[in-house]
């Protein structure tokens, strides 16, 4: 984990409305690094974020869409964003009202830093 990635992760966490950001291995679904607000279950977020990403990646490949880059899942109680970084995934949990555009940009910077 290099300093530029730590910095990028902090930048994602600093976006207003972001409640958690973590890096996890896609295969195992385990968090390698996490910044989460009180009450957020980082382990569960890592497990479900990676599972969703893996399912999306397989479905996209089967459908002929090629590699999966990012997922945004919107729900009444929040927003989950997942970006692939090689065999790792970056998972963010945010308030529903959080601007997806800001988070996406910060995530893309962080993903570039981790590669």
């Amino acid at each position: 984990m290099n300093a530029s990635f730590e910095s990028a992760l902090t930048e994602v966490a600093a976006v207003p409305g972001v409640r958690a950001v973590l890096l996890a291995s896609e295969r195992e679904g385990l968090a390698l690094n996490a910044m989460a607000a009180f009450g957020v279950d980082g382990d569960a977020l890592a497990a479900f974020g990676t599972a969703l990403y893996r399912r999306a990646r397989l479905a996209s490949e089967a459908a002929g869409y090629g590699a999966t880059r990012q997922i945004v899942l919107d729900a009444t109680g929040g927003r989950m964003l997942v970006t692939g970084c090689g065999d790792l995934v970056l998972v963010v949990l945010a308030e529903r009202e959080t601007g997806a555009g800001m988070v996406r940009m910060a995530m893309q910077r962080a993903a570039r830093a981790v590669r």
Partner: protein
Amino acid sequence: MNDDLVYDLADEMARDPHSLAFVRLADLLRRSGRSHEARHVAFAGLERHPYLADGHDVLARIMVDGGDEVSARDEWEMALRLEPTHAGALKGLGLLAYHRGDLPTAHRLLTQAAELDPSDQGLVTAAEQVRAQLGTALPPARRATPAPPPRDPVAARAPGSAPQDRPGGVHDPRTLFASLLGDGDRTALLLDSDGLVLAGTYVDASGVEVAEEIGAQLAGLADEAGRALTYLGLGAWESLLVETQHATVAMGPSREGSIVLVAAARDSQVGFVRRLLARASRQAAAWLESAA
């Protein structure tokens, strides 16, 4: 934006009834599902410009949308008599030839049209599909992305699809979203809770209908999203957007556990795809309600 353009063009026609803007106005009305008005505008324009190939082309499109292939063929043949290299007329006649099973003629006309207008992705795709069925060894035509089928209501009638329905009701569920999708590489499906296709169509680059396969793959993704949200206590899902190498795919829940799915070529803006999903969801909900 289309409404504004329709208004501007109608205004131009009111100021100058001889304007050639009638062609664009008729086509916009057709694409908006306002076929009756489109037909009126096209007829009125052709009364003033009977030798305008584009006018006959747009009237043919209106005819074919209404299922009148005989009149459409007459109009396209007239357009070709007036302008032998009219790509739209060649394309239309090529697709009609395809539908009556005359593959050699379809191939000849579509290839000729594609050479005249290589920027028309739907046309290039249709030519490829017919070529594949003929089994010829012609060089492959240009193609940008592998996924969605041609979206022009005329081109959308290429292999595996069905005629556009009359305004006022969608009789063929495969055309439910045709009016929303426009000209770009976009597609939309309505899936039931098991991932089976209720409405919409999806033809891949080789001309094969793949809606069921795509539906099954992506509906499973919605199930995964639902599980994650339940466990994380994030409430009910509203939408899921997946950005991939070749496409942006968005899906959302509809009535009775069904799922609306839209896909657009990767160069489409994410915000646009979300708006497309919202519009498709409204249309799907209305259709499901009317079908109940």
